[in-house]
């Protein structure tokens, strides 16, 4: 049967092209791979090869013709036994234009949605509490999960013999040995990729970055490989793993060591993002992160490592993702924060209370998934909201929260939402400038007074 040669699509964006030159004429024999014509696309002039063998019957489009639509017939090839002269184009091909399907996004609807808010306690009332630092809570979480599941291992710079650059992995090498607590060379890109491969291969890696600033070297592996593979593989394989380490400013370490990555990672579908404040949350959320079958970004804070909090003495403290914690109830203004931002939020709420303003303070704990329901529910009560984070103002987590509140609870707002953030500058080194660059408790107090019209 005669085969039509159709105008080929020769680039991802080509819709029509020019037949610059025929390199065969009617009656020529052609084999697969022979060049038939030169075609000018939107990008370049390309050679166009035969896919089938046969004899060129009719040439339907003369060379030099412009604007030939992709998939329209340009020649006919006669095959075994056919008379090449008599073969004609026999069909009017229809271009298989994939129809764009409008897809309904699970929408952030205009009308207020019902949110179910999980207000169950994280541990039973009456549980005995002990004082513990965030550092030790994180270490205990890893140790408990490594005891529970032999596929869990820790890798990173100085995690083994040095006992952790910030001593978070103290004692783990002794208990679990060098097979499961692996010191890496200083090659973030490489070892992050190796950990992703190990996760594909059936292990549950915990990757410690000495700080998340260095994870920028590895961010391609985190996002392109770890976060996207489950989707790209149609659900066949993903990366059950945790990337953890200190994030944000420490003290006097300047621009390259002081960035808050909360907003960056929380934008990525496929990642879960945790940013705990207290020791109990650090422990309970890290255990959940290690068990989660997805890649989890776990953002710690160097300043918080040494801070002590009450931690419940329970056998297996796991705290679910997507469940905010209300640290303080109040009716005048909602303060939403996470991580070290909570320190400013809580201090501000004390000062505000002294001025007769009752702030409700919400610790998101996880940014992805985000407990939007708790925010909306609180704003419906207080009618005002401010957000507090250490990161930069443009594209901040608070920006997203503001947009959600506008869409979900606009009618409840009595004032614009204010985002309290770090200043829009690289972190300076000088003590006084660093202090100015960071968010302060007084700025949070001021914002709360603005939205409550006390200022």
């Amino acid at each position, binding site marked *: 049967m005669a085969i039509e040669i159709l105008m080929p*699509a*020769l680039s991802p964006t080509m819709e029509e092209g020019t037949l610059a030159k025929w390199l065969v004429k009617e009656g020529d024999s052609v084999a697969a791979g022979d060049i038939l014509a030169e075609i000018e696309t939107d990008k370049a002039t390309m050679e166009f090869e035969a896919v089938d063998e046969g004899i060129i019957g009719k040439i339907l489009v003369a060379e030099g013709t412009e604007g030939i639509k992709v998939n329209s017939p340009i020649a006919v090839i006669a095959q075994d036994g056919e008379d090449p002269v008599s073969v004609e184009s026999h069909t009017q091909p229809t271009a298989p234009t994939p129809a764009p399907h409008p897809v309904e996004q699970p929408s952030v609807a205009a009308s207020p949605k019902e949110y179910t808010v999980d207000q169950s306690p994280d541990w039973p009332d009456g549980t005995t509490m002990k004082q513990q630092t965030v550092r030790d809570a994180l270490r205990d979480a890893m140790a408990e999960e490594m005891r529970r599941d032999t596929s869990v291992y820790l890798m990173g710079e100085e995690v083994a013999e040095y006992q952790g650059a910030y001593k978070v992995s103290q004692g783990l090498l002794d208990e679990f040995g060098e097979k499961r607590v692996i010191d890496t060379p200083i090659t973030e890109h490489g070892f992050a990729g190796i*950990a992703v491969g190990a996760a*594909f*291969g059936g292990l549950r890696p915990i990757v410690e970055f000495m700080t998340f600033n260095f994870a920028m070297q590895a961010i391609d592996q985190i996002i392109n490989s770890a976060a996207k593979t489950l989707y790209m593989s*149609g659900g066949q*394989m993903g990366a*059950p793993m945790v990337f953890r380490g200190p994030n944000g400013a420490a003290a006097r370490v300047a621009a390259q060591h002081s960035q808050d990555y909360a907003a960056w990672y929380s934008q990525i579908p496929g990642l879960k993002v945790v940013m705990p404040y207290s020791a109990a949350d650090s422990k309970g959320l890290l255990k959940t992160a290690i068990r989660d079958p997805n890649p989890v970004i776990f953002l710690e804070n160097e300043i918080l490592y040494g801070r002590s909090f009450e931690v419940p003495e329970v056998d297996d403290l796991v705290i679910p993702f997507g469940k905010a914690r209300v640290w303080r109830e109040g009716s005048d203004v909602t303060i939403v924060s996470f991580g070290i931002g909570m320190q400013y939020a809580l201090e501000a709420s004390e000062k505000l209370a002294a001025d007769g303003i009752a702030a409700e303070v919400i610790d998101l704990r996880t940014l992805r998934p985000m407990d939007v329901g708790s925010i909306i529910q609180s704003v419906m009560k207080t009618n005002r909201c401010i957000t507090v984070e250490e990161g930069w103002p443009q594209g901040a987590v608070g920006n997203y929260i503001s947009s959600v509140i506008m869409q979900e609870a606009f009618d409840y707002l009595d004032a614009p939402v204010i985002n309290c953030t770090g200043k829009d500058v690289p972190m300076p080194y000088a003590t006084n400038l660093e202090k100015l660059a960071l968010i302060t408790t007084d700025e949070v107090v001021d914002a709360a007074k603005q939205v409550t019209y006390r200022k």
Partner: protein
Amino acid sequence: MAARKSSKKPNVSVEELLSYYRDMLLIRRFEEKAGQLYGMGLIGGFCHLYIGQEAVVVGLEAAAAEGDKRVTSYRDHGHMIACGMDAAGVMAELTGREGGYSKGKGGSMHMFSKEKHFYGGHGIVGAQVPIGAGLALADKYLENGRVTFTYFGDGAANQGQIYETFNMAALWQLPIIFVIENNQYAMGTSQKRSTSTPEIYTRGAAFGIPGEAVDGMDVLAVKAAGEKAVAHSRAGDGPYILEIKTYRYRGHSMSDPAKYRTREEVQKMREERDPIEQIREVLLTGKHATDAELKAIDKEVKDSINAAAEFAKESPEPAEYELWTDIYADA
């Protein structure tokens, strides 16, 4: 091609020779069909064809054992077919259909098969190399005796993460075979213009990783080198580098006019070094097969590729709800 001469008296059976012939032909016909469907607008985006390089994957798969893993770049159709993935499922992924390996969500560059231990199909140049080392780390950790074939090109060989990976793979003695498919062009930049030391296999020496160059147009030479590398890694002696000198006949991707090399260069390689023609020659001159027997294989291959293409055209587009699935695994 400054590659090692292969021993032409293969200790392979006629059945094996015929299967290499068939497998290489299957890849070639698949790729030709993919090119054709691309031209018809049924395949979109980037589509990197493997035509000319078939002996690399077919030779190495012949050296692999059940359970061994493989991971590669975006020029991945040949690897998938060689490791036994279904041509129809691969083609349907290229057309973006429900019947594709990734349900139409990955496309040409991002495909996987847990069942066949194929770990992608990665679109970022070089990113699959540490991933391959991670698979090998998992195998060593689990003490399962498996090795991982980690493929990358001469272009990727200049990526920094390759050397980070060489270092750790050697340091930790990981069971990994680094396969450099040197097809001489990193997209449009010839190796001469991109690579300071042309013998890429020697770059492992800095890390204590043995390596060798292999004639990648000779499937038997590739198999022999693969067996040596596998024996090394499986014995616990760590990584091994195979720089396989090969050649791609088509452009980097479908939209590459390939003006960086002459038509004659391609034609010469096709006429003198073609891996399929070489094995055909061995089969015919050795009287291991008749022309008619090979023709029968050609027909069977062509029919199965046509069937794959039909499946890829008929398979429906993914359901719209698939937009929202497979983002997270259920915790």
